[in-house]
């Protein structure tokens, strides 16, 4: 019970605080140094083309497609399904019942469709994450540049994905209590804590991962837009 209370009530406050403070600090450091220009030709002709190119590269990982085909498939699938899963999770903390009703879906049906898509994404994510770890361990050239930080990052992601998948596939998991609890927490209205072993494990590792982002290489998600704009600035 104490564990559940810690993970569901106290820890989210810490997580949000650490993530926001860490991210603000990191972005402030980057911005303080001022934008640099180290053009890598051929460069786009206009700012609009520059941002278009950065957007396309961030969505397709096109350079990897040319430079490292197998990694491209693995990491692109990983990031794409990670993104899908994140979108899926927002359904848990937003009230979409009204929306589904207006679109003509019953709540139960919408939930089942969500479960099917989310479940598939969770499995693909698992396979992709295992691929990334295997690749790191098996390729001599990647292993020699890997440090504990790299293994911790992927281990955390695996822990989150595995506990999430177990939660979904081990037995029927009713999302209704979660839907009630977290919006409640945001409004400081604490309702009954949802009880599920896997949910607690999932929440714990997910929050550790979120807190780890600003201080580790996982900060590459916002960072890549800075580096690319330095290379392509016209």
């Amino acid at each position, binding site marked *: 019970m104490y564990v559940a209370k810690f993970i569901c009530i106290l820890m989210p406050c810490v997580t949000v605080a650490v993530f926001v403070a860490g991210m603000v600090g990191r972005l402030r450091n980057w911005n303080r140094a*001022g934008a640099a220009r180290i053009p*890598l030709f051929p460069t786009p002709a206009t700012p609009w083309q520059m941002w278009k190119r950065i957007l396309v590269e961030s969505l397709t990982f096109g*350079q*990897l497609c040319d430079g*490292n085909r197998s990694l491209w498939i693995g990491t692109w699938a990983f990031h794409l399904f990670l993104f899908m899963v994140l979108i899926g999770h927002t359904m848990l903390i937003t009230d979409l019942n009204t929306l589904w009703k207006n679109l003509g879906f019953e709540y139960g049906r919408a939930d089942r469709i969500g479960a099917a898509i989310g479940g598939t994404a969770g499995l693909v994510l698992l396979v992709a994450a295992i691929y990334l770890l295997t690749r790191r361990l098996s390729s001599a*050239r990647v292993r020699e540049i890997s440090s504990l930080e790299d293994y911790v990052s992927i281990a955390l992601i695996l822990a989150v994905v595995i506990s999430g998948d177990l939660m979904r596939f081990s037995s029927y998991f009713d999302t209704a209590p979660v839907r009630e609890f977290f919006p409640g927490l945001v409004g400081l209205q604490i309702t009954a804590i949802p009880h599920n072993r896997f949910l607690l494990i999932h929440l714990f590792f997910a929050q550790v991962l979120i807190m780890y982002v600003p201080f580790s290489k996982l900060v*590459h998600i916002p960072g*890549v837009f800075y580096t690319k704009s330095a290379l392509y600035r016209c």
Partner: protein
Amino acid sequence: MGLQSKMLQQAELDKAIEAVKAIRNGPMVLQLYMDICTKCGTCARQCHVSQSDPDCYANPAMRSDRLRRIYNAERSVLKKVLWSVGLVNGNGLTARDLQAWAKDFYSCSGCRRCAKFCPLGIDNSVITRKARSILHSIGLTPGKISTIQQFDDRFGNGEGISPPTAVEIADFLEGELVEQYGVAIKVPIDRKADVLFVTSGGEILSYPETLMGCAAFFHAAGIDWTLSSYAFDAANFGLFTGDDAHMKEKNRRLHEASMNLGVEKLVIGECGHAYRVATQIGGANYWGKDIPYQITSIFVLAAEVIRKRGVKLDSSQNPMAVTYHDPCNYARSTGLTEEPREVLRACAGNFLEMTPNRDYNWCCGAGGGLAVLDGGEGVHGMDSFHKYRMTCTGKKKLEQIDQTGAAYVAAPCFNCKRQIGQLMEYHRREVAVGSVFELVGKAIVFRG
């Protein structure tokens, strides 16, 4: 390679550590490169050093990690805590580290090919240059490179040529030109003219065919040009050693000579990094947006003239199969890829492309000043730096040239030309290596 295996004092170590810490104040990209590398290993698949033999293997991410580790260890309290339990990779700086830096960061040629493929937009050459600047500040720049810088500081050129000697060289080349063409082609120096022509001083001395080709071209095109004994050499080793003050000072000579001679155009010859420094780093960035002259490349100028049929070129004078090597500082750092090809196609009948080419071209293996390093300790088990360049860093270029089957490699950069020339000699290939304007000189037809 003349790396001083000198004993490092604590004061020097502290200086290096302070310099690493200062990355926190910028430049922004360097800070980002320290923070966001995910160690995916893609750079190693696209680096000519990594792709050579296993015994001289180097990994760009591992090299950059040398700097990253120190940076992380010297970061904020939180990073320090994470680092101390191993959650963030890092360690303190030791004298042994710095000796390893000196070898590692002078095995990277700063060609930026990895940046073309990095999914996170990391340009390892920026990290290399930063590490080199730290090495330079504590006197660990390879002997030959730092000697050239010292000559630069004293004479304004890396060869130690005094102004009277420069004038003599110009006179001598005029004589050679008359002998070769039977036409009174001038090599003007220190005259008021429309165009100030500057190129690598080393090339003028040891490969004068290029300058002679340029002189013939200027003559045939009727361009009023001059050399400068004050800015005789456009090479700028400040780019290689990471010494910003030196880079600016050397660039100032070009600016001052252009102002004093009242030229309309400052034209950079066949020298990749000189063109990069003059256009991308120096020039307007150093001396203000309203500099009264235009900075351009001999290739841009020549392509314009050729398009307007301002010179007559007979491509049958160069019947052999010619291939073109894209120097990294042209293709990736200044975007100069089409004009040299236009010039080359106009003066050589049988032009072949290397694969890959343009901004994806493989480095010659001696960029970033490595071409001048020959003997000494070598790198990573090699008995000399020359052997290292021949058997490791140049391997990809050799394969590429072999594939084209060309008999002549046009390398419009003195650095690349020296490396590729030595490669062909070392591996006993019957391939000539020269410049584009040497071919222009051969193909040029004088009217009347």
